[in-house]
């Protein structure tokens, strides 16, 4: 049978992209001094450390962790609560389909972006330097971080609502507050609650490590024990906080599923 010939495909763009990405990755690894063989050769050191942490962990230490752990949970609760609370009105203001003044959105979103860009740790250490050691600094840091997170998610939700319900209310003469109360809030409430719970999940993890910079909670205990090389206690702390986070995750995932 006769052979069919087809023109060659134009693959330049695709190949160029793959090449650039590969170069970026390899280049980054090289720049950072990453040497795979060195890593593999030294893995035994890691396992040694893990051994000292977890086999066995210092179980007698558990009673002394409970108090800082509770403080961590409290930090996460309060931080999420305050952050979420302030986030709701902010999100309403920042959404471009409710209050349509541009000079409100742009600066508001700008600020939100900046807040989300600063890592929680940095915020925490800033507040520790200003407010001193302790959970208060941690709470402020978490509140601000959560505020940025939930505001963004919520205003995106607001912008994605079924605008028809808003129009229907406006057409019957409702003012802005009524539209908010009856058309917008009902639509985004489940999502907002879901985001808040998600924020709590994130914060529980963040709170655990914020203590590292002195912001209270289990993180401080962790840092202390690491500094003193009490690795078996470190292991206990890790397992304990791991378990707590897992439980909270499971519970909150279950709650979130029932919301949607």
């Amino acid at each position: 049978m006769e052979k069919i010939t087809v023109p060659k495909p134009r693959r330049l763009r695709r190949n160029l992209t793959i090449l650039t990405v590969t170069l970026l990755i390899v280049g980054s690894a090289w720049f950072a001094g990453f040497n795979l063989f060195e890593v593999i050769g030294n893995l035994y050191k890691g396992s040694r450390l893990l051994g000292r942490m977890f086999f066995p962990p210092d179980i007698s230490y558990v009673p002394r962790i409970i108090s800082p752990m509770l403080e961590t949970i409290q930090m996460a609760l309060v931080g999420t609560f305050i952050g979420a609370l302030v986030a709701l009105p902010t999100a309403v203001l920042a959404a471009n389909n409710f209050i349509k003044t541009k000079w409100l959105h742009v600066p508001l979103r700008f600020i939100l972006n900046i807040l989300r860009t600063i890592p929680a740790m940095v915020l925490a250490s800033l507040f520790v330097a200003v407010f001193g050691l302790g959970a208060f600094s941690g709470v402020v840091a978490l509140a601000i971080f959560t505020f940025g997170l939930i505001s963004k998610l919520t205003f995106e939700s607001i912008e994605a609502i079924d605008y028809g319900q808003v129009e229907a209310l406006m057409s019957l003469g409702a003012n802005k507050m009524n539209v908010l109360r009856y058309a917008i809030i009902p639509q985004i409430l489940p999502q907002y609650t879901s985001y808040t719970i998600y924020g709590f999940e994130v914060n529980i993890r963040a709170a655990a490590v914020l203590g590292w910079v002195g912001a209270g909670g289990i993180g401080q205990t962790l840092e202390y024990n690491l500094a003193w090389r009490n690795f078996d206690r470190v292991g206990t702390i890790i397992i304990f906080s791991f378990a707590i986070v897992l439980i909270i995750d499971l519970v909150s995932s279950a709650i979130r599923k029932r919301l949607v």
Partner: protein
Amino acid sequence: MEKILVKKERNPLKTTLHTIYYLIVFGLIFWGFGGIEYKGIMQTAASSINALLDGFINPDLAYATNTTIDGLPYAILETIAIAISGTFVSAIISIPFALLASQNIVGQKVSKVGKLIVTMIRTFPELILALIFISVVGPGAPAGILALGIHSIGMLAKLFSEAIESMDMGVKEALESCGGNYFEVLFRAVLPQVSPELISYTLYRFEINMRAASTLGLVGAGGIGAPLIFAIRTRSWERAAIIIIVLVVTVTIIDQISGRIRKKLV
């Protein structure tokens, strides 16, 4: 006119449950507030805040233009390098994990185990991971890459498996009907089908990892974290300020680029 009477539907169980939920939530929050000490904070705060703001008005520009290894540009580049290598290598390794956690690929039982393993990896704090790797390869960026990479597997594998579980099974069926085996179905149907979502999630993770990478430096895993925390602790506000400014600008730019690419994928 006669009054119309409508029987109000009351479900006593539901209302009780709802009340209990609200009570629990408010109780928790109340308890939460109780646990935080509000010492005499505001006195020392005022002067610190002033110094902080001063630092932002006069940032340490010399540090920003110092192109040697001690300077800001190098540290930022190192942070970016950590984030890039950590994220993208992790993405590839996450794929098998994600498949093991996807119900429509490996079935109910195996996927439950897979999901558990992924959750365990995800919950392990990055900071501790970084410390463990520092003991392996010493302080510096490689430890950060490893910590970020392993932790990201937990995050990405979960997102990937969600994408896989919600994909249209049609192409998988089509390739099976042609006589494709497991791997052929995987590489010629499943993966190409979900790849836009996978790439999108990877980029999203990269954005988050940029922030994480700056934090990891705190424990000595390289990047901008260490100089930043040091500046804050020593109250060198001009230096802290310039680092924060450059960091925010860099992350924002990266976010924008990444966001644009992600939009084009969908």
